[in-house]
């Protein structure tokens, strides 16, 4: 039997393919499991968790922009404990590797969250230091190399799971943050989280979002995200998971060629729930037509 050309190992975890449902766009898998074959995904990244859960932000939360969307969900989530007790084991039943996405408002939140997650059957902890939609903490940890490295080191010291740090495209010096996280012991990096953007309701003469700014995602950001993944992948030795606006196998290939070992897909799933499955099929076709033993051969060729 020929081996699976899409297979890869990420942080010591075997994935059937490099297509991962992005955090915050796939719940904990329940909803899409009802309408598509989620077992075919490489991995599923759960909604961003905070220690004690949150009702998220008030007011408008999603707003479409040209080929993109702004969101200000504000990490609405049931809390780490609920996740550990109810969601992690459900996610395990789905088949794909299980990634927990951990946010926080302060250092203690992160550390206690990581501690609790040690009790969950997950494969990777994605450390979200890049959420632009929470007032305290969130993105603040991911803006500077020092704070990013500090929280990475502390979470690494606590977590028994591999830690993938999710970076913010809003960091003044993204490459420096990436390098700092690598030195602090991160097992992998994922990027990009959403770009800080703004929407104005001209009729009402006010900002659309209560927080004024919100996070931009979707195809609109792909060219910038791709450049950032290229920069970061060329600056670090640890694996990089790329994302930002991916809609098709061709888009996924761009991120792989730029240096990402795997990709995450978020917003496009909203537009077309089957987009990730089409991407997986397209990547398999690509391996066949290019005669690749394994798709990883093209990682970082540009």
């Amino acid at each position, binding site marked *: 039997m020929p081996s699976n050309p899409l297979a890869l190992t990420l942080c010591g975890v075997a994935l059937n393919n490099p297509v991962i449902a992005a955090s*915050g*766009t*796939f*719940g904990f898998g*329940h*909803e*899409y499991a*009802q*309408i598509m074959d989620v077992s075919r995904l490489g991995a599923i990244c759960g*909604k961003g968790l905070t220690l004690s859960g949150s*009702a*998220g932000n008030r007011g*408008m*939360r*999603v*707003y*479409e922009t*040209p*080929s*993109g*969307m702004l*969101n200000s*969900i504000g990490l*609405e989530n049931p809390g780490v404990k609920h996740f550990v007790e109810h969601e992690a084991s459900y996610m395990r039943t789905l088949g794909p590797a299980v990634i927990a996405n951990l946010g926080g408002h302060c250092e203690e939140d992160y550390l206690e969250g990581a501690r609790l997650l040690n009790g969950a059957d997950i494969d990777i902890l994605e450390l979200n230091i890049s959420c632009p939609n929470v007032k305290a903490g969130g993105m603040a940890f991911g803006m500077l190399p020092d704070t990013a490295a500090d929280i990475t080191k502390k979470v690494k010291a606590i977590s028994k799971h591999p830690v993938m740090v999710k970076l913010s495209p809003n960091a003044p010096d993204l490459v420096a943050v990436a390098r700092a996280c690598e030195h602090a012991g991160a097992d992998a990096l994922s990027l990009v989280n959403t770009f800080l953007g703004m929407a104005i309701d001209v009729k009402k003469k006010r900002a659309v979002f209560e927080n004024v700014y919100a996070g931009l995602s*979707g*195809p609109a950001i792909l060219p910038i995200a791709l450049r950032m993944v290229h920069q970061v992948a060329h600056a670090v030795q640890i694996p990089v998971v790329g994302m930002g606006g991916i*809609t098709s196998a061709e888009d996924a290939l761009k991120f792989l060629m730029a240096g990402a070992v795997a990709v995450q897909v978020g*917003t496009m*799933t*909203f*537009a*077309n*729930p089957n987009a990730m499955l089409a991407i997986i099929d397209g990547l398999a076709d690509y391996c066949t037509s290019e005669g690749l033993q394994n798709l990883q051969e093209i990682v970082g060729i540009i």
Partner: protein
Amino acid sequence: MAEVIQNEPIANGIYRMVVSGAPLGRAGQFHMLRMPGTLDPLLGRPISICEADAKTGETTFVYQTVGRGTAQFARLLPGQEIEAQGAYGNGFPLIAGNAVLIGGGIGTAPMLQLAKELRADAPSRRIDVYLGFREEAYLEEAFTRYADSVTLNIGGYVVSDVNFSRKATFYACGPSPMLRAAVIAAEQANASLFVSLEKHMACGVGACLGCTCQTTNGRKRVCKDGPVFDYREVQDAI
């Protein structure tokens, strides 16, 4: 991918589109409709099922052109394709006994399929329909197929036409001010009322948490846990 069978204006800025190939749903559910081959508009537009015909496999939508997405729908001609993901949402419960349906403006659309299902469910029940429009009525003819009475209100407050002390289940869909009026009336009369809510949506399936609201039973997603709610649960969210 669904195919447009028919797509024509039925009132000023209001279109009726019949498609085939969309998964069939029921009253109160909706589809996320999207133009294929473009990333702008990017997200699907939630549009209620106005009629779903199991025999022909056709689904009818009635929509108002308010922005870019719906303007694009209005340009479609028969034979062209449209993406229809669904049917999503919980739909209206069919409660035994008489029914009063209240539709305001484009909120009239989901009421038609509801009337149809209620009639099929119990041919003998009484179905009274109250429709309110700002200027021009539409769809009112179609209701006469299923309803015992259809009362029109143009330019006024449709809720004030309705007697909430009657023994019946009340169903309402329409703009927020109308729903709020219905809620107040239902509360005073201690009536049973189901409302269909609207929120801006991204995924339509309950995954993005873009459309959550506070209910008496915790936070719920309008797209997945709704859009139909017992009004007592979502009074603060209307």
